[in-house]
């Protein structure tokens, strides 16, 4: 059964000035998600609305937004699960906004020192060809790199130098399973003022994480490793 629901959507264009909220009425189904509604708005009301999405099933991590003030992947945030009334959709916090709901994710990668100590080359079949001359893929395990943890973290909101939950969680993951890697540089990186010790245990990263990485728990484990002088294994 199709019904109508109100949406208040954050808008920003680098060409046309200050940000604002636009109000739309969208047709939705009982199983519709926030992304379904945004796509409906884009198709039927305003084709200029910029949204980023890809897989539609919480795998790619590209559609992270704030819905009614809470972080979530638009593709799996069901409208029926939200409080009744108009739905407010904003871009993730603590990221530069490029256009409307699209944020600059390079600041996510920038939080890691170069070369990344906490990423590793993905395993690929030996027969697979890498596209366009790319030598290798790099990605985090478990983490889908959506950035919701950085958006939810109240420490990142006032300290842009804090490396944040995602990088720290992966550092701990590397310590848990180093696969022969030298963990010394990772421990020294995590021991900095703007790393493991900057977390204030609000646990909002874990609340926001759609991939069950549990960054806060891993940061606490990392602290334990650092204080015990161990290597985390």
């Amino acid at each position, binding site marked *: 059964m199709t019904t109508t629901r109100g949406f208040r959507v954050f808008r*920003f264009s680098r060409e046309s000035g200050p940000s604002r909220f636009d109000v739309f009425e969208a047709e939705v189904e009982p199983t519709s998600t926030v992304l379904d509604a945004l796509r409906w708005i884009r198709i039927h009301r305003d084709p200029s609305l910029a949204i980023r999405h890809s897989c539609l099933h919480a795998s790619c991590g590209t559609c992270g937004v704030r819905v009614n003030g809470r972080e979530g992947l638009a593709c799996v945030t069901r409208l029926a699960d939200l409080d009744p009334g108009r739905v407010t959709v904003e871009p993730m916090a603590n990221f530069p*906004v490029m256009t409307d709901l699209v944020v*600059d994710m390079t600041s996510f990668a920038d939080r890691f020192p170069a070369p990344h100590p906490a990423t590793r080359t993905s395993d690929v079949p030996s027969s697979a060809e890498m596209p366009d001359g790319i030598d290798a893929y790099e990605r985090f395990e478990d983490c889908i790199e959506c950035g919701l943890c950085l958006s939810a973290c109240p420490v990142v909101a006032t300290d842009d130098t804090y490396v944040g939950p995602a990088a720290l969680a992966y550092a701990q993951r590397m310590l848990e399973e180093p696969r022969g890697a030298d963990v010394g540089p990772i421990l020294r990186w995590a021991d900095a003022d703007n790393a493991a010790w900057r977390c*204030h*245990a*609000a646990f909002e990263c874990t*609340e926001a994480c759609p991939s069950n990485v549990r960054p806060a728990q891993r940061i*606490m484990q990392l602290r334990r490793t650092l204080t015990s002088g161990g290597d985390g294994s």
Partner: protein
Amino acid sequence: MSRRDDDLDVIRSAREARGPVLRKSPGATAWFDVRGRGTGHWAFSLNRFTALGLTFYLYLHLAVLSMLLGGESAWHGFLELATTPVFLGLDVLLLFGLLFHGLNGLRVALIGTGIAVDHQKALFWSLMIIGAILLLGATLHIVGSG
């Protein structure tokens, strides 16, 4: 420079050519915006709030102690004011701040050493119950002595 760095440089150049992005960070308001947030964020917010309050109290306390420089009469005059119901209420508020900040700090220290990490919410509420009992006892003592 790696292929990844080259790609990022291309992305950054193209992005900057279109004009400045919007820096939309909530700033310190994120500390206290607990709408829809979990127990950990409430604890974080109250921890910040009590930290600010206790810091203010520290300087206030030093200012009050400086009244001793005004002699015995000035100090006795303040003591009469300090035993009024309003001041006793502020004493209870101060105790709340001390208890909350201390007990939440204990929670952070415990989970930071790997204790009860997966039960941090239960740990928080357990400590808060202990704090509430201590605060109740202290309040009765303060009111009784007022």
